[in-house]
């Protein structure tokens, strides 16, 4: 091997070492990013909104939630207690909440009592005060929570406390357990806080192991009990497991097919090893460059990257096929020089195709582009720099194979000369074109993130039962200071109230439900003071002792000095589940999140908040979907541009023959689109990207056949096409709809391109 070959090997080794250095904690498993949110682009112009998205996803992600039981309350409680204890004993969790210390119900009422005159209430005319007092005293509702009739004669404080969204979950505390009684039985709610991020592979391993152990013990001790679960750790682990399984399927499947092709066609271990070396160089470079650029590998890259195998082997296939065809006249370096224009044209169109993937500022797609481009380049360079030195000797002749290829070339090429064939093509193109009217588009990001059906069903059931909110959307409320943020929240809640009333929303979670804005507090105080005189008279008339009015008066005097603040509320234990709503100081002042609970469509919510200053609905899924749509339209434009550019490139060399060079890939693309339309599958960004690659691969095949019209080229094209078809076609088995669509479109397009590439045989370069 010459010096440049060794230099290239050294280069790869350095690259691999540099990439390896990025693998720190957790090794290879640690390098795989299971946080699917990470591969999505920042959709928000406002960094505070992105911070809100992270806060919410963390709050939802750093714990696992279980419902245990499902039968009679007695056994369900015993099972819940046993499960919580078993989880806790493993030590895998920071905290397991199943058995609660007795909660002091006076905590909330005690906190609000000093602020009772500053809590918002519905005012009534002075003339109705006596009736209001009498009604309250006679009510079957009794005194309600709070300070009682002496301190809260009209029940304003009680009404505020009753309306606190403290109990948005349907669970109650029974015997120290969070208990849920449903028509389907009694369940116990158990939550386990992870020791770290749900996306940390070590945390995943230890938590899931502990849960499996506890589940095993539960099944043994309480055979009838059921266990429902949800939490980021399950989704992350599930996504990793499936991605690894799919990547394994694709890589082993492609590898087996490639090895079989090598043994069948080249019958040489040397060729097999050299081919594997090219694939290996491609994979090493792709992984190392990706790690150097991104630090981590997304699951999408793992799956899609496995398809690189079938593409990286294209160039060695073409080169080896040439050797096989040359027979005894083989001269390694001269052959490479002859092949170089076609190889370069081929690699350029394919790299261009991949580059369009990276145009969008979409980390997941960019990584796929970088991975594929690095891998393909490395494979090509290995063919160019290493292979000629190691393939000096001619390969043993395969006259029978060559003769068969010759016949195929004649027969298949002859087809292209028949007018009936051309008419058939035109008719097919017209029919396929007509079917495109049925094509619809879909940019839903869920095509990219599709958790397993069982996990989703369990999560849905759990959320239904508990009333736990799981949607990633929220209103971002911003203002200059705390008071403005709270006042803006109140304006928003007033707009959302009709939606809650009509049942479109289950409820709204907001800090201002717990801490009224200073303006609302001042208004309440002013109203109480205004009412004080008439109220004293009404109290006397209804038989209240004189001291009651006196104490109320004194309380009103003192109330002005102590406003209720967010800080004071944040320090209370009952604020714990809601603390994440308060973002506090941000780049723009102060900010908070308001959570709409329920399934109300986002456009309806956005409409309700229309025109409110400092308030905006943030829906990550919707924003990413909109972005995907935007890039799909961009990619469609890029595809048209690419066709035009490649066309111009070809016209210079082939004149009218360009139609035959470009025709097969275009028909392949059309066929893929027609199948989408007829199958009722929507067109997504990923289909468009696949079409760009069909163009890249398809032009490779026709250019090769037009440039080097030999049986060996046909062999190379068939081998390369088959490997590509297989490795991308295996993507069709992916559980991720986007990858499935990508694989199907690409496989179908490549297949049709190859089948029709005989028309290129008639083309002669100028």
């Amino acid at each position, binding site marked *: 091997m010459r010096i440049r070959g060794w230099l290239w090997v050294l280069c790869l080794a350095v690259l691999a070492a540099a990439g390896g250095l990025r693998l720190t904690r957790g090794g290879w498993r640690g390098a795989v990013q299971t946080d699917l949110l990470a591969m999505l682009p920042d959709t928000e112009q406002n960094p505070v909104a992105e911070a809100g998205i992270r806060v919410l996803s963390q709050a939802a992600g750093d714990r696992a939630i279980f419902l245990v039981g499902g039968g009679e*309350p007695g056994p369900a409680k015993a099972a819940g207690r046993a499960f919580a204890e078993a989880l806790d004993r493993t030590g895998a969790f920071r905290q397991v909440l199943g058995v609660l210390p007795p909660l*002091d*119900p006076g905590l909330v009422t005690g906190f609000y009592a000093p602020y009772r005159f500053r809590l918002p209430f519905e005012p009534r005319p002075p003339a109705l005060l006596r009736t209001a007092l*009498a009604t309250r005293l006679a009510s079957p*509702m009794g005194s*309600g929570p709070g300070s009682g009739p002496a301190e809260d004669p009209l029940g304003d404080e009680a009404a505020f406390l009753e309306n606190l969204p403290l109990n948005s979950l349907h669970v*109650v505390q029974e015997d120290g357990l969070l208990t849920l009684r449903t028509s389907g039985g009694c369940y116990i709610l158990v939550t386990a806080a992870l020791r770290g991020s749900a996306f940390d592979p070590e945390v995943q391993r230890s938590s899931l192991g502990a849960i499996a152990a506890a589940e095993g013990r539960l099944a043994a001790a309480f055979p009838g009990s059921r266990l429902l679960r949800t939490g980021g750790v399950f989704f992350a682990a599930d996504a990793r497991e499936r991605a690894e399984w799919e990547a394994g399927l694709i890589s082993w499947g492609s590898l087996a097919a490639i090895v079989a092709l090598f043994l069948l066609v080249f019958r040489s271990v040397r060729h097999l090893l050299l081919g594997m070396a090219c694939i290996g160089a491609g994979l090493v470079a792709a992984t190392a460059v990706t790690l150097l650029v991104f630090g981590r590998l997304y699951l999408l890259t793992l799956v899609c990257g496995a398809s690189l195998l079938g593409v990286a082997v294209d160039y060695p296939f073409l080169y080896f096929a040439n050797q096989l065809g040359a027979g005894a006249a083989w001269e390694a370096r001269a052959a490479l020089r002859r092949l170089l224009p076609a190889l370069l044209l081929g690699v350029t169109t394919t790299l261009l195709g991949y580059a369009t993937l990276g145009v969008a500022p979409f980390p997941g797609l960019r990584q796929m582009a970088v991975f594929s481009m690095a891998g393909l380049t490395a494979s090509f360079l290995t063919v160019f720099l290493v292979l000629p030195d190691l393939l000096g000797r001619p390969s043993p002749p395969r006259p029978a194979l060559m003769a068969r290829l010759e016949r195929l070339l004649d027969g298949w090429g002859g087809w292209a000369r028949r007018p009936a064939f051309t008419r058939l093509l035109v008719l097919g193109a017209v029919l396929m074109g007509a079917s495109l009217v049925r094509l619809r588009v879909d940019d839903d990001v869920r095509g990219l993130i599709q958790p397993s059906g069982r996990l989703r069903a369990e999560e849905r059931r759990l959320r239904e039962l508990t009333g736990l909110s799981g949607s990633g959307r929220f209103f971002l409320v911003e203002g200059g200071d705390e008071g403005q943020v709270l006042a803006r929240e109140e304006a928003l809640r007033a707009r959302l109230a009709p939606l809650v*009333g009509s049942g479109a929303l289950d409820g709204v979670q907001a800090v201002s439900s717990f801490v009224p804005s200073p303006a609302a507090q001042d208004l309440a105080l002013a109203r109480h003071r205004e009412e004080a005189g008439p109220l004293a008279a009404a109290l006397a008339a209804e*038989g209240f002792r004189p001291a009651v009015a006196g104490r109320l008066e004194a309380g009103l005097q003192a109330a002005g000095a102590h406003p209720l603040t967010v800080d004071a509320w944040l320090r209370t234990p009952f604020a714990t589940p809601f603390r994440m709503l308060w973002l506090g100081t941000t780049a723009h002042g102060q900010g908070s999140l308001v959570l709409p609970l329920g399934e109300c469509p986002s456009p309806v919510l956005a409409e309700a908040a229309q025109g409110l200053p400092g308030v905006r609905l943030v829906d990550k899924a919707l924003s990413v979907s909109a972005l995907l749509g935007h890039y799909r339209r961009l990619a469609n434009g890029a595809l048209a541009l690419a066709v035009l550019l490649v066309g111009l490139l070809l016209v210079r060399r082939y004149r009218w023959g360009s139609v035959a060079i470009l025709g097969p890939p275009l028909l392949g693309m059309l066929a893929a689109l027609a199948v989408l339309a007829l199958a009722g599958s929507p067109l997504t960004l990923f289909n468009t990207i696949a079409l760009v690659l069909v163009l890249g691969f398809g032009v490779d095949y026709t250019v090769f056949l037009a440039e080097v019209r030999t049986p060996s080229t046909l062999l190379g094209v068939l081998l390369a096409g088959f490997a590509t078809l297989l490795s991308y076609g295996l993507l069709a088995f992916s559980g991720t709809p986007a990858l499935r669509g990508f694989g199907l479109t690409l496989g179908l397009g490549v297949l049709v391109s190859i089948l029709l590439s005989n028309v290129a045989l008639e083309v002669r370069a100028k």
Partner: protein
Amino acid sequence: MNSLSFLLLAGLALGAREAPSAGSLTAHLKEAAVVHADFSQVRTLAALSRPVKASGSLVLARDLGVIWELRRPVALTYVMGPRGLLVVTPEGRRDRRSAREAPMVAQLGQVFQSLVQGDLKGLEAWFTVTGRGTPQHWEVTLLPRPQAAAFLKRVELSGGLAIQRIRLEEAGGDLMDLTFERTRLDAPLTEAETRLLAQD
């Protein structure tokens, strides 16, 4: 928390059903899908120099809810059921608090229903229940568990063939005495009552 009304309903349901140690005392009431009765209520509050009296009638409909019709000192109708709380003034003005807006009320409705259906275990989430006496004269005592203790000290129910008295002792020492009279088990729901219970 609507602890008092909850207890009230719990008490009524208990009376209409079966006290734990009272055996088949109210067996004939079990079949009654609808109970009509008159009530009078006396509250003795530390803040007031005289007791507060109120009276009216009630309808207890199994599975549907309760109509609590207050006549004196003010006329007001409360309808409590699985869909939430509805308050109707004599002029027909309706104030509705749906189960979504007021989950506490919804929970009340659920627990209440389980009570009406004879699920006494539901009560034990909130209280320890003890009963004594004979079918002709029985008494049941409810002692609140910690989550109800902030509002209540003790509840006592008593009756014979039908429930007769409920005495609630609030945490602050205030008392509420309810007496039931003219209990009727045979009258079906009127059309107006059915409409009210539907809370439409």
